[in-house]
């Protein structure tokens, strides 16, 4: 995988739309080349064997193809969305546990997301990534451990020291708008 050839993260939206609207295999291949090895790497860091992580990553990518129409760019970046799919497949396939998911929000007729909202959310997600990268090493390691499943629930401290508080308000706006259009 050549890093320098991959487009900026917000641009992955075009690939998702192409998969959703025209079942574009070339766009899907680009998503695959970028995300599948990262999903596999994440699953292995979380304790899966290479074989299981490979199989699970393929299933995650297949889910992305099938569920492209459900992706809401005003509420999550492509990386965030793929993470949630990977996490769910991991619980289902590797831990063999059931995963209760929140109720989907029904779409209103004019619920096409606002472009401005989408861009700001994607941008803030990138900023969050930069903020995490800039954390002191010990703190960053603790956060990674929590997501790799190396910390039990009771070991996750109430104060994680995460630089949060921005994306939340963007998602909240998108939810409010969604509920408004449903009325």
């Amino acid at each position, binding site marked *: 995988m050549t890093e320098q050839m991959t487009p900026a993260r917000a641009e992955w939206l075009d690939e998702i739309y192409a998969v959703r609207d025209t079942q574009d295999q070339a766009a899907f291949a680009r998503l695959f080349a970028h995300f599948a090895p990262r999903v596999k790497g994440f699953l292995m860091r979380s304790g899966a064997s290479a074989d299981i992580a490979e199989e699970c990553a393929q299933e995650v990518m297949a889910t992305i193809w099938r569920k492209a129409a459900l992706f809401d760019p005003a509420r999550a970046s492509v990386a965030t969305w793929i993470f949630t799919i990977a996490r769910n497949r991991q619980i289902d396939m590797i831990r063999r546990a059931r995963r209760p998911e*929140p109720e989907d929000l029904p779409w209103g007729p004019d619920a096409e997301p606002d472009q401005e909202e989408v861009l700001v959310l994607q941008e803030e997600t990138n900023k969050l990534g930069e903020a995490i990268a800039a954390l002191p090493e010990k703190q960053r390691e603790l956060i990674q451990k929590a997501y790799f499943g190396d910390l039990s629930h009771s070991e996750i401290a109430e104060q994680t020291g995460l630089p949060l508080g921005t994306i939340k308000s963007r998602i909240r706006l998108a*939810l409010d708008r969604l509920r408004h259009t449903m009325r």
Partner: protein
Amino acid sequence: MADIKHHLTDQLLMGYAAGTLPEAFSLVVATHVSLCDECRSRLGEFEAVGGEVMMSAGSVSMSNDAFAATMALIANTPEAPQKRYAKGIFPAPLQDYVGGDKDDVRWRPVGGGVRQMILASDGGATVRLLHIPGGVAVPDHGHRGLELTLVLQGAFKDEADRFGVGDIEVANEELNHTPIAEEGEACICLAATDAPLKFNSFLPRIAQRFVKI
């Protein structure tokens, strides 16, 4: 949306986002998030952290035929139809466990007019629905671990506060409380514990062996 005053903690949202909570707690979190836009957006933030952690965890090359295998997977896997129940007072994740809504719950008496249905028990944590008639108290109990109580109908009060529809009480070992259902409509709660409740009087302790609280 109900007027929700009591929300999930960051600790629970992060654990749910990371996928490390026991199933019993995950069901309570997913049910509350279904009712609460505030916690849905906070969860979105913790999932964004997960996405960033995943993207920086390092790549591992896929096998040579991985893309073709995935396309075959897409072609060969039929869309699994998701069962949907009629809208009621239970959000979808809870309906999936009950097999329907309020009227489909298979209640069992636990004494004092209180009824319950155990929904899942896994990894030392148990989640149950409780039906508490108006004005009735759940016996005074402390916790050896964490207890989450989410109100779905009616309301209850305890030493800490009043909890109405959508509110969640997060209780730890320090809280010794006596929840009392408000007069009127019965209070229906979704409650998860990661240790057996310890009742503070002799009789309920005996009953505990039989009712699996």
